[in-house]
């Protein structure tokens, strides 16, 4: 391998492969990718800083707009933090409805990801069918919340809307169709010869590498790394649900596809359980419009659609605004594993491998203090998050 044969293939910030702006410099030798340099931060919108100038409840619509696809995960994570901060007793019915919306959102996001995966490998028919069936779950979410994208369902102390029996029947019907369709898609992703040709043994991320680079979500679970916040640290009503953690051990794009398809089917199961077990009672408790929590800091985490999502909220006890809100999204953790996956693959595999981590750069780009290029590994301890929060506060005056 001589150095003069290697040239830079610059992908992004604008590229049809990327749905959001991000820059990757691929060192390419012929058709092989030798190395990659990611450069993040194109979609930095200053949401964390903006949060410091809003009251606790005003932040809800703000964090909902961190990401269009996982909007519910963000509000859920933030409301969980607020529940703890304000010491609210959330009624079980509300917890169940939160679980339902979270799982429906997981179905829609995974179907979106798998559809785009079909598009990236040149299989547009798969993309069209997947997205057609995704409309069903979008309609269900609209039925529940009134919105197709930003559901705004989670509020501190409960949910914004209740479920009635008519809605529940419609949801059950929709879930039946979705289950049938997704069992078919599982067959496509595990048996179709052209899909297998593009996915099997492509973008391999070994288990040890996944652990050392701290991969999260489906990316990690496809590398046989058992991590799922829903199981490890159950929130809302997950401890009362009976579901499997989907793990595959082939570590390639094929495994990541199958993890997603299986998670859709598992999510449908969870939704059905929620509908069957839904307890009676209130769906929210009253919260004052300008809550002033005591001096306290809270970390909440949820299994977002792409992996573990962490919110750190600190109240200083004097103000109706938070002292600091810190968000860490899953895509950030999956960027380094992506760089490992893509090395040694063909240029043609880049979009497929990138899509297999289901990247969401808009989520990730609020983060100010992470230098991905150095590839430094660290553990997010409470002290470090506190330190980063303090440091950021100081640096920005």
């Amino acid at each position, binding site marked *: 391998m001589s150095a003069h044969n290697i*040239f*830079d*293939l*610059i992908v992004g910030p604008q*590229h*049809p*492969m990327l749905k959001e702006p991000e820059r990757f410099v691929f060192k390419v030798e*012929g*058709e092989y990718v030798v190395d990659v340099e990611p450069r993040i931060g194109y979609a930095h919108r200053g949401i964390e800083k903006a949060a410091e100038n809003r009251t606790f409840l005003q932040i809800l619509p703000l964090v909902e707009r961190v990401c269009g696809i996982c909007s519910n995960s963000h509000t859920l994570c933030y409301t969980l933090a607020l529940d703890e901060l304000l010491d609210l007793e959330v009624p079980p019915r509300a917890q169940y409805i939160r679980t339902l919306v979270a799982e429906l959102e997981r179905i829609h996001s995974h179907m979106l990801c798998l559809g785009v995966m*079909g*598009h*990236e*490998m*040149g*299989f*547009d*028919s*798969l993309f*069209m*069918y997947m997205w*057609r069936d995704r409309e069903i779950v979008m309609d269900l979410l609209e039925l529940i919340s009134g919105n197709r994208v930003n559901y705004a369902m989670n509020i501190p102390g409960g949910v914004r809307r209740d479920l009635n029996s008519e809605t529940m029947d419609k949801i059950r019907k929709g879930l039946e169709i979705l289950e049938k369709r997704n069992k078919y898609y599982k067959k496509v992703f595990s048996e*179709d010869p*052209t*899909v297998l*040709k*593009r996915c099997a043994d492509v973008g391999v991320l070994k288990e040890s590498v996944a652990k050392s680079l701290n991969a999260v979500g489906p990316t990690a679970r496809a590398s046989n790394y058992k991590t799922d916040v829903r199981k490890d640290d159950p929130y809302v009503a997950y401890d009362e649900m009976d579901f499997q953690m989907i793990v595959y051990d082939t570590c390639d794009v094929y495994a990541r596809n199958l993890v997603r398809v299986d998670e859709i089917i598992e999510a449908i199961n969870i939704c059905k359980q929620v509908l069957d077990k839904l307890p009676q009672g209130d769906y929210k408790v009253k919260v004052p419009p300008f809550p002033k929590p005591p001096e306290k800091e809270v970390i909440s985490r949820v299994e977002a659609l792409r992996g573990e999502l962490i919110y750190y909220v600190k109240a200083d006890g004097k103000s109706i605004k938070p002292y600091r809100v810190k968000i860490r999204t899953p895509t950030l953790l999956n960027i380094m594993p992506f760089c490992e996956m893509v090395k040694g693959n*063909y*240029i*043609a*595999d*880049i*979009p497929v491998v990138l899509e297999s981590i289901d990247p969401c750069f808009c989520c990730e780009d609020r983060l100010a203090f992470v230098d991905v290029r150095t590839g430094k590994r660290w553990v997010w301890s409470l002290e470090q998050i506190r330190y980063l929060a303090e440091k950021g506060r100081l640096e920005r005056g």
Partner: protein
Amino acid sequence: MDNILWILFQALVFPGALFLILLAFFYDWFDRKIVARMQNRVGPLVAGRIGILQPFYDFVKLVAKEDITPAAAVRPLFTTMPVMAVAIAVFSILFVPMLSHEALLHFEGDMVLVMTLNTFFSIIVFMAGWAAMGRFGSVGAERAATQLMGYEIPEFISAFSVCLLAGSLSITAVNNAQAQVGIPFILLQPLGFVVFLVSLQAELEKVPFDIPEAKTEIVGGWLAEYSGKKLAFFKLAEELRVVFGAALMATLFFGGNHGPLLPPIAWFLIKTTIAVFIISTFRAVAARFRIDQVLKGGWKWLTPLALLQVLITYLVFLVVG
């Protein structure tokens, strides 16, 4: 004098360049509509009746757009290649019998010329990508040339094994031989047809072989730097190539423009429409291959199968006489 005028009319208007361009637009619409229906969409709908004018509108729109030549591009190549592409595409279709049972241009051995022109088109694609001097253009050009290695030989062999049946290297002769034998050659050489279909798909750069363009990977590949008129001409050339591919398939395997009752041109249109339908179906049901997989498949499967077809044909000839 009248004779020359008639030939000129045939070459330029009907069934020559103008007719072929209109046909190219029609088949582009047909292809888009078929693929759209297969993907559960409606496809072109607004321009003209059920969107039939859409490809024409697209062409006119592209022609009217700003035409940018990159500073680094090799200007002479960059500007001439689009025109060359259209010219070669039209020229090679004229060897296929359309209006009568004899092609406008025909001589013993024109199959060799047409196949050479075919390869020439791939060279044009390579040069076009190279002349643009862009990163994606270079990769696309490289892929186009590499893909050529995979599909060219099996395509040649499968086309020539049909000639073996007809006993002539002329497309017109193959066309008429099927009328004499009474059965289309697809029934005599099914294996050869499959090889021809797959390699034709690769030649036309349609999914699953749209590797040199691969929009999600290399942003249009060799076409990436082209815009305005030049892009319009390349698009037109590609549409013409679909007409050419369908015409060749219809002539070599579907019994040419022979058929009962209807005039030859009608049979030509019917059979090419069927061919386009097959090509479109192919496009809707597969994911894109990788370039290494195309080469491997071409040499591991297509070429041996094509040779096997030649061998079978030869043995049958020996036995039957």
